């Protein structure tokens, strides 16, 4: 089972690599093959030289030539070793870059909710880990076929030419090693899994003593000794386990080694026999004897290093291969190929020509793969095409085809992305939402049965306790989450599973702090837009962002790359500027002032008042009083909207809002 899936995944990996860089992969294989040949040449040259010594009586000049040949063979082997490995390293980087890009694109297709599922998140993390390993794991089979197998076959042939029986020695040496590997795999997996939790605990207790998170408290409570005791208990247990494991391993190794040594003995015996019976020269004996270790070394390397490591890492690579959307993978493969060829052959072609070619190519590919492609894949390809391409594309087709295609295309494009009109109302009908909970079968609704109409231009405040569903509702309105039940529509456009590409902007509670320049930190919300410098400056001014914090718009922020460190409040303002920078008709502010002090908060709420004039806006807040800047207040409780009205209305009415308001008000009497 395991081996089968190993080989299968390996092949999938190779196919991916081949599609990304066909020439490079062929070159790589060729280099490995030459590398394998070079090692055999070494052995042959040694024998040739040794035979020369035995036969030669006093004639130096011929020996000199043989020595030089030998030197050349060795030098060749060294060079091939270097070139093949070096090329592998370089190619690895190229491949990793592309595999990463494919991952990014796949992730980009995911809905934001995917990151809330523990399982899905796990898959994503594993896939991300797998990115790096794709090359090494996938080339394992290539290496085995082109280097190791080649080497062994050549050596076998060489030994066969010396004496046919000798070629058996290859098999003799192989067997114990393979057996050993199998045994190891069978008997150590469970021991390893036994040790893992102990190690985890040990590490945790160490962290309790020395980790940043715990350091000051462990010190002040004076409970270091407590954790030291626990740590040492785990350490002893782990040591025992590991030593026990090692002893078992070595017991098996010992048996294997006895086998190996016997195999050696047999081979040497055969060699001696042939020398004694004069069927091989003593030079051949010395050469083969010298090569035996190397021979064995390769065997060991291929089985216990290459294969073992590949198997270990296969899991992550498998995750990666399974994770990446085949469509995205394929599409980027095309892209890379095109880029490759374009850069090599057609660097100077005009854009138009290029795009024509590109389309022809894609068509060809399509006709080839059409059978396998699913609709989804197609639509992905479609959507990513540029408009220009589209027109050229259409021009090339017959009318009939064209109309069909165009129809399909617009249809699909719509299915994928939504562009919102400039002004729209938001309507939620019977919206319910449950976060995925795989383990407990019961679905717990974060939102249940919400009906809501937000007319264009209204400022709405969402209030309620932690966990009442405010943020979830925001995410649904923002189009980040799809409702489990019910429908959301914007100005009559109903959203299914598609992505909204314009018209909505947001400042999230956990906004991001990008270690980029100040300007980039703001512009990142709308990178495709081509807005003037003035606009950027104006927005920063409005949000109270002072370029001097970073030493100018191009000044770096964040510690990561040695940028300026700004305070939480300053980050908050930058995040708000970011939200404003994106063209929006709907602005969502999710608890924008959680991290800042009173004065700063007052300032910002003043700003929000101004901000929300030209668009629809939704503000989530804990500070009930600050909800007063809103035209309308929605009070949420347990996933439902329990009250809806203006501040004045709600204060008059008995209910949740009033209770909360009074509670807070007391503090400020």
């Amino acid at each position, binding site marked *: 089972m395991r081996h089968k899936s190993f080989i299968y995944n390996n092949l999938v990996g190779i196919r991916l690599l081949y599609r990304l860089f066909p020439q490079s992969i062929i070159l790589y294989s060729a280099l490995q093959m030459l590398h394998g040949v070079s090692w055999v040449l070494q052995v042959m040259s*040694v024998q040739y*030289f*040794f035979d020369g*010594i035995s036969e030669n009586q006093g004639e*130096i000049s011929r020996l*000199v030539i043989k020595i030089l040949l030998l030197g050349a063979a*060795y*030098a060749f082997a060294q060079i091939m070793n*270097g070139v093949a490995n070096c090329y592998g390293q*370089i190619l690895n*980087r190229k491949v990793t*870059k592309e595999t990463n890009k494919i991952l*990014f694109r796949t*992730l*980009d297709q995911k809905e934001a909710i995917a*990151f809330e599922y523990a399982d899905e998140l796990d898959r994503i993390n594993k896939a991300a880990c797998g990115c790096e390993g794709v090359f090494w794991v996938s080339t394992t089979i290539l290496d085995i076929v082109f280097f190791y197998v080649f080497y062994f076959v050549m050596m076998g042939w060489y030994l066969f030419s010396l004496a046919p029986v000798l070629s058996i020695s290859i098999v003799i040496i192989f067997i114990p090693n393979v057996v050993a590997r199998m045994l190891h795999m069978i008997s150590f997996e469970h021991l390893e899994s036994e040790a893992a*939790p102990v190690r985890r605990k040990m590490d945790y207790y*160490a962290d309790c003593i020395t980790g940043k998170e715990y350091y000051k*408290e*462990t*010190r*002040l*409570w*004076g409970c*270091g*000794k407590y954790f030291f005791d626990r*740590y*040492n208990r785990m350490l*002893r247990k782990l040591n025992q386990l590991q*030593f026990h494991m*090692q002893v078992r391993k*070595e017991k098996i*190794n*010992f048996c294997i080694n006895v086998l*190996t040594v016997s195999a*050696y003995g047999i081979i*040497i015996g055969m060699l001696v026999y042939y020398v*004694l019976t004069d069927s091989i020269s003593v030079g051949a004996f010395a050469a083969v004897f010298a090569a035996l*270790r190397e021979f064995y070394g390769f065997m060991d390397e291929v089985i216990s290093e290459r294969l073992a490591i590949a198997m270990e890492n296969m899991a992550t690579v498998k995750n990666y291969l399974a994770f990446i959307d085949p469509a995205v993978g394929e599409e980027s493969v095309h892209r890379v190929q095109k880029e490759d060829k374009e850069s090599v052959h057609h660097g100077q072609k005009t854009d138009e020509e290029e795009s024509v070619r590109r389309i022809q190519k894609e068509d060809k590919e399509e006709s080839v793969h059409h059978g396998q492609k699913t609709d989804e894949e197609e639509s992905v390809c479609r959507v990513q095409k540029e408009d220009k391409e589209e027109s050229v594309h259409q021009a090339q087709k017959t009318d009939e085809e064209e109309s069909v295609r165009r129809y399909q295309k617009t249809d699909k494009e719509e299915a994928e992305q939504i562009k919102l009109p400039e002004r729209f109302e938001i309507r939620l009908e019977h919206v319910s939402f449950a976060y995925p909970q795989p383990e407990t079968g019961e679905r717990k609704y974060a939102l249940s049965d919400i009906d809501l109409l937000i007319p264009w231009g209204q400022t709405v405040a969402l209030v309620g306790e*932690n966990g009442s569903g405010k943020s979830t509702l925001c995410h649904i309105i*923002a189009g980040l989450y799809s409702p489990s039940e019910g429908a959301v529509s914007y100005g009559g456009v109903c959203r299914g599973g598609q992505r909204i590409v314009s018209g909505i902007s947001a400042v*999230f509670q956990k*906004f991001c702090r990008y270690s980029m320049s100040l300007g980039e930190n703001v512009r*990142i*919300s709308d*990178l*495709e837009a081509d807005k003037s410098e003035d606009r950027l400056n104006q927005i920063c001014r409005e949000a109270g962002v002072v370029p001097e914090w970073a030493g100018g718009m191009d000044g770096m922020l964040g510690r990561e*790359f040695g940028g300026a460190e700004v*305070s939480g*409040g300053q980050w908050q303002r930058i995040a708000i500027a*970011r939200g404003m920078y994106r063209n929006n008709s709907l602005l969502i502010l999710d608890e924008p002032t959680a991290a800042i002090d009173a*004065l*700063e*908060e007052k300032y910002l709420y003043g700003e929000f008042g101004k901000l929300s004039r030209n668009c629809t806006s939704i503000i989530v807040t804990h*500070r*009930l009083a600050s909800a007063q800047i809103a035209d309308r207040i929605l009070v949420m409780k347990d996933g439902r909207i329990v009250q809806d009205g203006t501040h004045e209305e709600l204060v008059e009415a008995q209910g949740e809002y009033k209770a909360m308001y009074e509670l*807070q008000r*007391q*503090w*400020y009497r």
Partner: protein
Amino acid sequence: MKNPEKPKYNIYIFLREMTGMIPFHAGYLLLIAVLNAFLPTVQALAIAEFVNRVEGAYGGVLEVRMILLPLIILLGIVIFKQMIPSATNLVNASAQNRLKAVLRNRFMRKQAALQYRYIEDSESCALIYRVCHNVENRFWTGYRTVCNGIELVVKCAALMSIVMQASILSGGAILLVSVPLFTLAYKTGRQNYVLQKDAVEVKRRYQYLAGILTDRDHAKERAMFGYSGQIAKEYDRLSEYANRKEAVIEKKRYANMKSGSLTMVVLAVIIMLLLLPALSSGKLSNGLYVGLVTSILNLVQGMSWNLAGIMQGAADLNAYLHDVDVFLGMEEKEDAVAEPSRIPGFQVETIEFRKVSFRYPGREEYVLKDCSFVLQGSKCYAVVGKNGAGKSTLTKLMTGLYEDYEGHIFINGKDLRDYRYGELKWMFSVVFQDFARYALSFRDNILVGNGKDENERFLEQIIERLELDSCVQELPRGLDSQLGKLEKDGVDLSGGQWQKLAIARLLYSEAPINILDEPTAALDPRGEAKVYEMFRRVTMDEGDAVEEGHVMEEGHAMEEECAMKEGHAVEESHAMEEGRAMEEGHAMEEGCAMGEERAMKKFTILITHRLGAARMADEILVLDQGRIMEQGTHEALAGLENGLYKEMFESQRCWYET
């Protein structure tokens, strides 16, 4: 600061310590290294013997027993090479186990005793991590590198000695050629890390971008702002650039390494050529020549990787030892790991800051500048101020985490520096904003650090009063349920529950001084109010209420106080809660009686930026620009014209004016 007499941690001390810690293992490894070093020589001699005897028998009859001895030796070599690694593996495991037990404890003790400033300094942290992460492995690998080096040298020397025996002339010539070629090989193998820096920097950049494109933290903004495509382009550009740079480096690296091996090949060829005259003149037998060449060629094969490996290993060991030296030289806090030691009869009278100035290590600007104030033991205090005004720094100074401040801090008139650290630990208990969530049982989370004597009743009362009892009941094994994800059956609490647990830890402690350092950041205002209420109820009232004769009904002190002051009835919305409070009253009284000796009057400092919470303190200190700008009761401060407190308070209050 640093003890100047302390010898630098260098290779000699390293070796001495290794032989001290694991004499047997270290000796074994060295022995194997030396034996290994002689193998090529022995093999050369054995092959020589074999070849000579076979050739000598040409024409005559060759019998097996004639070549038995060299054959046995050859087989012996095979057995040695094949079997020894198993034994070595065992020694490896055992050595690392032993080193782990010794070194990890030693280094962790050091780590636990460090001055706190190192922990907050990212550079020191990185160094500590480098030193302490897998320390046993680093030490053992280092020692192996040393042995490998010795092996290589002995190996070459042993081979050389046979050559010399055979022909001094050739041997001398070989030495002459070897030295420069060997040096060349060594040098080219060494220059590896020059160009790297630029590429590394760019690499960090694009890896950061990769993080933005894949991780969870950025998921929402990524989807919202749709920047994946653009950022991926930037990623592509940067990684292309870095790849190109690294390809150059890689090529150079391999070129260096392989030119090193090519040099070795040339050397081998030269040696073979130089030995030819001796061969033809018969000084060197055919067999010995073949044997020598076999061994030399083997050496060449291994040399390129081996030499590079040893060079790399030596460089790593060197850098590591330097790190260790710096680490061991780090200053320790006296009594850092001491357990809290009780001061009998201690009562807080005053805490005074006198002209305290402080800046974080490596920073220019002062967080506190000439900060002076006096706190009376009979009152409860709140410290407010803008973000970054230095509120939390006060805690860190008082609790002795940082001690290189200027000025003085007095507790009951005695300088803080004159208290033993254990006493300070006993004196303070703190709930930090980022309080620790230990993955222990619920019970142990409260008991941890609070001595051994467990007072079950008192514990239960605290849990009850913090309204954690329902939470405990829901846990699978009650108080003994494991929290966190360390154990399989571990459960996690919500943010609010953890917060309460942290406060329970503080309440259970017998420390006379409590500091709450923004403990409610994770809660919403309502949850926050609840926590403060409860806190007030269980700490201040016990003392204050009795002392000041405010016989309050119990619970909801804050609310009632407000209600009384304002003459405004809010009972309506709280009638229910009041009812519950009454019930609690009973438990409370019992608690007071029970935990009398423990629940002594606690002196409390609240640090917060939520002004509403601050007013429940008797006095409020306003921290700004590194000093206390205002100090007084809420009423006094709220009345202060142009006062910062007033401004801050008004900014929040104005929303609530109807």
